[in-house]
């Protein structure tokens, strides 16, 4: 058992190799606009956006082993910050995007520094409360966020004189793909860096990590800030892509959805998290009542028999079943799989 663990640890901290698999994935994804199907592109944009968010959450929940139940709070902060910067202050999207990410990181630090010294449960609850407060503020701070009726007509990005249009999603798709590639690159570098190794050590055993000289609070706070920055970046993209913001896009259920992606793909596994996001976004489309009704109509199932809440029941059941039978996810990270196998051994 110890031998297996040692090998896995070496594997994750190996030298940098060109990620051929990722390059192939991005190249294949870049071919999607050739189909010319804008519905498919819309789904693709959401899959990429949620992959970015899930990879960000994965830093906390996957790498550090801390449950963050309010990740969507940073997504919301980024989205509203970008909207305010672009519309109220008339700045370009390319300024708003890094500003939103920086604001996310700032909030991550401010929230993380006092709370990350607490146990995991308490951290989960604080993050949850934080995201609910974000919603409350976006709903009630009418002078800035335009209140409960939503933020309308957010400006589109303009690149060298070309304005992105919602009805032609190809440009947005490539923007999402670029941000996705950036996120994957950063994640791969983080995973094999000193920082990543410190996070894994914290996840495996906090006391041992501390004994090795790792500053628990510092590394956790840094992880939280980086995760928040990616969440806020995703939010800024979403604000510009959707053109309107409404608080209902940032509720607790979205946090759970992103968590579900991370858990399903595999805690800590970057390819797994992307797989989980793509699967869940596709499943979300498939489980929409009208799509489901269209698919089941040939079998004689009436549309009225299909409940609208089905997808959340499926997500909830997925969380329960994955935790029970495949806690390391569909595409597990080696260390996590070994850890869970060991837990199972000691339990028996």
């Amino acid at each position, binding site marked *: 058992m110890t031998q297996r663990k040692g090998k896995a640890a070496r594997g994750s901290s190996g030298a940098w190799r060109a990620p051929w698999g990722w390059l192939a994935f991005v190249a294949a994804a870049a071919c999607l606009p050739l189909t010319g199907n804008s519905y498919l592109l819309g789904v693709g944009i959401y899959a990429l956006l949620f992959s970015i968010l899930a990879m960000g959450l994965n830093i906390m929940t996957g790498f550090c082993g801390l449950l963050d139940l309010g990740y969507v709070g940073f997504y919301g902060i980024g989205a509203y910050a970008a909207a305010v910067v672009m519309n109220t202050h008339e700045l370009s999207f390319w300024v708003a995007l890094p500003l939103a990410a920086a604001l996310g990181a700032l909030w991550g630090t401010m929230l993380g520094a*006092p709370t990350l010294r607490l*146990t995991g*449960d308490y951290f989960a*609850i604080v993050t949850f409360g934080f995201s609910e407060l974000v919603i409350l503020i976006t709903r009630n701070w009418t002078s800035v966020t335009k209140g409960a009726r939503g933020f309308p007509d957010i400006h589109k990005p303009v690149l060298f004189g070309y304005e992105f249009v919602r009805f032609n999603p190809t440009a947005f798709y490539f923007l999402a793909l670029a941000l996705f590639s950036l996120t994957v690159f950063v994640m791969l570098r983080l995973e094999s860096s000193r920082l990543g190794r410190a996070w894994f050590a914290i996840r495996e055993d906090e006391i041992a990590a501390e004994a090795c000289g790792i500053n628990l609070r510092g590394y956790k706070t840094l992880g939280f800030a980086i995760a928040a920055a990616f969440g806020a970046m995703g939010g800024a993209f979403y604000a510009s892509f959707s053109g309107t913001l409404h608080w209902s896009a940032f509720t607790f259920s979205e946090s759970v959805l992103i968590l579900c992606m991370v858990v399903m793909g595999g805690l800590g596994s970057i390819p797994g998290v992307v797989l989980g996001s793509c699967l869940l976004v596709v499943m979300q489309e498939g489980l929409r009542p009208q799509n489901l009704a269209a698919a089941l109509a040939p079998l004689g199932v009436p549309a009225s028999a299909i409940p609208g*809440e089905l997808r959340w029941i499926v997500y*909830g059941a997925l*969380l329960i079943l994955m935790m*029970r039978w495949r806690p390391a996810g569909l595409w597990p990270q080696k260390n996590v799989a070994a850890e869970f196998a060991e837990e199972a051994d000691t339990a028996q």
Partner: protein
Amino acid sequence: MLAQILLLGVTMGAAYALIAVGYTMVYGIIELINFAHGEIYMYGAFMCLALTIASTPYQAAGAALFAGALAWVVAFDRVLERSGSKPLAHGCGLAAALALGLAVYGGCLARIPFPVSFLLAVGLAAMLGVAIEIVAYRPLRDSPRLTALITAIGVSLVLQNLAQVIWSAENHTFRKYDAHPSLFLRQNMPEGTSFWQTLTEGHYLQGGPLSMSLLQAFILVTAFALMLGLHLLVTRTKLGMAMRACAQDQVAARLMGIDVNRVISITFAIGSALGAVAGILVGLYRDEIKPTMGYQAGVFAFSAAVLGGIGNIPGAMVGGLVLGVAQSLAIYWELSEWSTGIAYLVMISVIILRPAGLMGAQLPRKS
């Protein structure tokens, strides 16, 4: 005016306290934030509603299938524990499921007198809590805590949306439907006057500047009686001693001959029953029952539990009352749109500044 609003705060606070006790008991014994507890509160209210009003056949069938599944799980577990024979346990489970399912189906269609449906709903909610523990949490008792917490969120998601499938997302009220006549306290009330109206509009207890509706008095008396009973149970009885022993050290408790699984089941049953009582009382008081009601109430109650010091039963009671009064003061100062934020602010600031809570002396275990 202020006194009147404070009374409202105390009433809601008593309900929060009843729910908070469930969170705190479960956390005390298995160190799990039971995210599904708010849903149990909601199911208590819905089951009582479904049994008291004349349900549609679809709703009755949904409620009956749900109750049957609960009966199966609980009966299976108890019989398996006693006899060790799986076929026998499944047989008993099936029998229990059929019996309870048919009873609930009949009850939903026929309407049951309110006091009976109240008790039945509380019993069903207790079974729900026990069944959740058996199915979802028990297999994960030795896993990392992250797994159990994620499972709890999954359970909450499934239950909340299942309620929407059965009863739809709209607001339900006792008043709106053709409820059993026992909801009316006096037979000579005008037609269409509900229990709710009888209690809130019909009779007031006057005392100086305060006037208290009968329903408020009913809620306060019930809540305080139940909390007193729980306190006596935990501190004075053998079962309470077993519960405290399990909370302290499960291995040692097992060595002393305590059936830990049974004690955990009983803890879930008591916590869930109290939550369901709160659900029914608040459902009557606010006169609205909907599938999402458990989410917000759960958050408030959890904040109350944190405020009092999680794992500490008297703390949860005090925390609930403090939170209820704080929220009513927010309404008094015309900050009502921020009153939900108070719960979150209380939760976050207590966790950051004084993680042990108002009443807790011992700091949470670092792990």
